[in-house]
């Protein structure tokens, strides 16, 4: 047996590697080969088609009774049926996809084969893309096999080919994000049962959030020009896209932790967050502010505050070798966070010096940027004070929940106690909304923003000085067990 090592292929450029990961991926081929030999796959497909077929049959029998009726009524029935069929497929896709992916990486761990894959020349990206590709291939197979049933709608009318394709596009997007959720937990957990529980928990929670979010986002764009007709949809898809990307990076990082992955996660998160803030600010400045705008704004802010705890709680996680390798990385140095902080202050300064309708938007945008920084800083300082056994994300979520819920509790039932002790200036919800202008001590949104900034700055500075002693302490010498 002889093999010249030069016959193994070079790594090549980024695009070449990406192309290879997508189209010449041994993991994908292996999963397809093994997966399609499993009986489970055919059982799922059979049940899927039987359920869809039954619903279609019932509809066709109903329509057959109305075949001599008004064509427009027939088209209307067709449209309604198409929606029923879409939601039915959506729920089935959402329920089936995590079951395909949540065991893909955890079973590799359970059978001790993941190490062999990682010791080969496959990258973590190759492995994740291969697994994701398998799940999507199967879901696409399901969707395509159901197409003859769903296409029967064209005999009845009421649905254009565009609507039909759009529905399939939405189903594919739903499959993509649910597959990625399953894969993320599969990489994170050592046992498939744990990964399954967490995946389904998040999928159900995500579905609820989606149903809540769709209303305020639609409200924001209902007054816009005609070319913005698809804006809510486009934004929702963009949000799903970037969440999928973040989870993909997180999965890759679970398999092979590296600062470059964490940097990519942080960068993607912050860019997306700023883009969200910027997009809404731009839109709100150019349109009358309505009730839905505030709801959408608060939703975006709160979602990102919670997501930040999951995605960017380790911006300085580095091994000693990575410290040397990535010492010029923006996340390994405080200058990045200072720049981020300055951006928030700039938005607030603009708000405090300006006048008119834009003030609310500027102050809210500035605070929105500042909140991420402030919460990260506060959580880190508190965690440092509490010692090494406390996790930063836990502290982060406690702080976020407290500052969001406590002031709401104080202000419930028409209570007008706006004193600093109630914590209203620390609340992301209230600070970005602005307090009622009839409050005697305050003069509108800009004052609330200024008070919030002062409150946060003071809190960060005090906590920093309180935790500095602890941070400066040298870790105790490790006990040499030998």
């Amino acid at each position: 047996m002889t093999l010249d090592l030069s016959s193994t292929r070079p790594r090549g450029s980024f695009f070449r590697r990406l192309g290879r990961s997508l189209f010449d991926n041994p993991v994908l081929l292996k999963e397809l080969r093994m997966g399609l030999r499993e009986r489970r796959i055919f059982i799922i497909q059979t049940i899927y088609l039987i359920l869809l077929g039954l619903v279609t049959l019932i509809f066709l029998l109903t329509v057959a009774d109305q075949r001599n009726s008004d064509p427009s009524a027939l088209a209307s029935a067709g449209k309604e049926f198409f929606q029923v069929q879409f939601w039915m497929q959506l729920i089935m896709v959402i329920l089936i996809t995590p079951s395909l992916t949540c065991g893909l990486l955890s079973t590799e761990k359970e059978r001790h084969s993941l190490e062999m894959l990682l010791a080969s020349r496959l990258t973590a990206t190759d492995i994740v893309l291969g697994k994701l590709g398998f799940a999507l291939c199967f879901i696409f197979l399901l969707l395509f096999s159901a197409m003859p049933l769903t296409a029967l709608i064209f005999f009845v009318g009421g649905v254009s080919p565009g609507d039909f394709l759009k529905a399939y596009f939405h189903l594919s997007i739903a499959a993509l994000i649910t597959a990625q959720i399953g894969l993320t937990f599969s990489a994170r957990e050592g046992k498939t049962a744990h990964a399954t529980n967490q995946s389904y928990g998040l999928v159900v929670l995500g579905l609820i959030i989606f149903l809540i979010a769709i209303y305020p986002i639609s409200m924001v764009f209902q007054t816009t020009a005609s070319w913005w007709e698809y804006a809510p949809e486009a934004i929702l898809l963009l949000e799903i896209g970037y969440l999928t990307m973040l989870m993909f990076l997180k999965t890759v990082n679970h398999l092979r932790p590296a600062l470059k992955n964490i940097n990519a996660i942080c960068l993607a998160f912050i860019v997306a967050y700023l883009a969200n803030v910027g997009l809404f600010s731009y839109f709100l400045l150019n349109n009358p502010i309505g009730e839905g705008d505030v709801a959408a704004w608060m939703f975006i802010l709160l979602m990102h505050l919670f997501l930040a705890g999951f995605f960017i709680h380790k911006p300085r996680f580095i091994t000693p070798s990575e410290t040397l390798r990535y010492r010029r990385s923006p996340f390994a140095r405080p200058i990045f966070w200072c720049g981020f902080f300055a951006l928030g202050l700039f938005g607030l300064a603009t708000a405090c010096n300006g006048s008119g309708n834009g003030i609310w938007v500027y102050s809210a945008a500035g605070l929105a940027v500042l909140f991420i920084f402030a919460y990260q800083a506060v959580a880190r300082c508190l965690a440092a004070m509490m010692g090494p056994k406390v996790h930063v994300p836990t502290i982060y979520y406690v702080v976020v929940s407290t500052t969001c819920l406590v002031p709401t509790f104080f202000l419930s039932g028409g209570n007008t106690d706006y004193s600093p002790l109630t914590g209203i200036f620390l609340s992301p919800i209230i600070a970005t909304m602005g307090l009622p202008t009839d409050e005697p001590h305050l003069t509108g949104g800009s004052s609330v923003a200024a008070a919030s900034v002062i409150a946060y700055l003071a809190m960060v500075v005090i906590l920093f000085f309180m935790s500095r002693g602890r941070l400066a302490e040298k870790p105790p010498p490790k006990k040499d067990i030998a």
Partner: protein
Amino acid sequence: MIECRSLTKDYGNHLALSNLNLRVESGDAFGFIGPNGAGKTTTIKILATLQEPSEGEAFVGGYSVVDQPDEVRRVLGYMPDQFGVYDGMRVWEYLEFFAAAYRVERPKRRKLVNDVLDLTDLGKRRESFIETLSTGLKQRVCLAKTLLHDPAVLILDEPASGLDPRARIELKELLRELTRMGKTLFISSHILPELADFCNKVGILEKGRLLVSGDVHEIQAGLGKGRMMRVRVLREIETAHKLVDEFNEAHRAEIVDGEILFEYGGEYARLADLTSELVRFGLVQFAEEKTDLEDIFLSVTRGDQ
């Protein structure tokens, strides 16, 4: 071929490796010995680029495991202690998958798979599903997978654990064949007899520290132990024993089961003189006892003390 410089791995509350310095030359068969929890698997995982060291550096084939992991994976074949095989795959499919994973070009994969199947004597099992194979055969498939990209260095973590005696002997033969092919072997085990046969160097690790490393005979000499010699004569065994006992370089001579056993700490040239002296007693056997790794291991390690 393999070099560790001040390698340390600290898990926070547990120091798994402490300042490990090790050098394995090209073509060596290095036995990495130690009790459970000594740090063998941690060292191997660092060398296989699966973990990063807390301090120090390691090189495989001249490439740094931290800075050039992909190059290391190109020259390294790694067989973990608990290997996973995929159910529902045939032997050739499994091997072809790993050939692709090691980025072997598609046209060469089929031939390469056939070559390693022949080398590991698995040709007849080519079409078998992996789950139907015995543990010994699965181990062979895993070793075949490790050889696919023709690595210069093979790191095998407990390769014989869980194998029956026959499978163990067959594996030993296979490993011997690999050393003949010029591969550098780095084998971790706590079953010492399996290493004693073909490892020319050993390293003994305990509680994260390398206690001793090098040629087996050198270690023995360093420990103040000579080579064990076994002599069988046809007549006057008592007189022959007295002669051996009075020989300067021979120590602790004793008669056991009609044979004279003694520890020899001198040059081979002097040993020839002793042999010629013993011929007059009807010398029929003069042999060096195989190195007793267990003895060295027990002398070097301290156990739980």
